[in-house]
């Protein structure tokens, strides 16, 4: 659940998102969230790759097309 909560807060709370960008550890501590180092790495991957080539947030349908190319 923690990973989901942190993703949700980054996506819906600009202040938390800015704080996360500057200092993830203190952003988590201020909200009382706990993420393992691994989870932080997975989230960093999610944030980095959840954007399209033009840097806008990737659409669900675009992510779904990944499935088609893989399976």
């Amino acid at each position, binding site marked *: 659940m923690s990973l989901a909560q942190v993703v*949700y807060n980054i996506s819906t709370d600009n202040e938390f998102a800015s704080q996360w960008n500057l200092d993830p550890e203190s952003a988590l501590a201020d909200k009382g969230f706990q993420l393992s180092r691994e989870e932080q*790495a997975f*989230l960093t991957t*999610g944030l980095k790759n*959840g954007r399209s080539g033009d840097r806008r947030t990737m*659409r*669900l349908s675009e992510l779904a097309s*990944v499935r088609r190319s893989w*399976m």
Partner: protein
Amino acid sequence: MPERIWRLIEEVWLGEGAWPDFIKAMRLVVPLGGSDNKGSDREPVKWALLPGLCCQAAGGDARWADILAAAWLLFYIAADIMDSVEDQDEPDPWWQESGPGMAINVASGLYFSASQVLNRLYQYEATRLAAPDVTKKFLNDFLVMCSGQHRDLTNPEPSLDQYWQIAAAKSGCFFGLACQAGARLGTDELKKISSYQQYGYHLGMLIQILDDLEDFHGLQSSSTPVKWTTLKRSLPVVYALQMYSGSNERQLRQCLNDASGDNKAAEEAIALLEGSGVVVYLISEMARHRNQAIENLEQAKPQPAAAEFLETFVRDIGLPV
């Protein structure tokens, strides 16, 4: 898929009393060779390579796992048919006319065929010793899978934690079984066998996430209808409903209910889902399962030739995760 696996299934059908017209019906859904075959979905065949690859990777001969590959494939297809009937999906063309009774009967035939195939583990020197363990594991894991399916059917709106429990019991367990059973034929080192099981488990979870995304592909193409009833139990919706509260949650529920016949509601539902950060969440979870699959594969110290294939299964996901 090696031809010998197809022959093994045919041998069981012909040798164990199935009638010709029933064999013809079962051939329709098993996507291997054969002139009657109309199966177009190649995915199960690809994943049925897992027992052989894990057996080889663990130090055995891939051919020792032919029996497992055949049994696992038959179980996979049978479970898929049962899932379609239980979820009241649109019927496949082959059972559209005769109804779900025929689908359930063919699925039952495939379950019993798979059990007969598994019994053959006792016939060969290379597999005889491991046969009791492997057979027990197949049956135990099927009970777990049925438990997961029961919870899925009785809980139309699972929480996020419940979603992951159900996914683990169904997809994670089944793919873990393919890899664990294959590895068991190649080695008796428990730690290695467990690493292959974990590799398969995480691969299965990755496949489940991607399967849940499949219905969202229809949003991009007007030719593919979006199944909103299925979407309501998909990971993106479960995540967003769990995260949102108050007016956003109410609005999302309303839009999901209206989406089937109302394009504006459908667009609003997607906007709400995307606004919750669901894409980042899914990619983060995919990264988790991909990394853990690779980590477990490395811990198993696999033979290089088979390891390359197993690693490709999880690396070639199309995302730079």
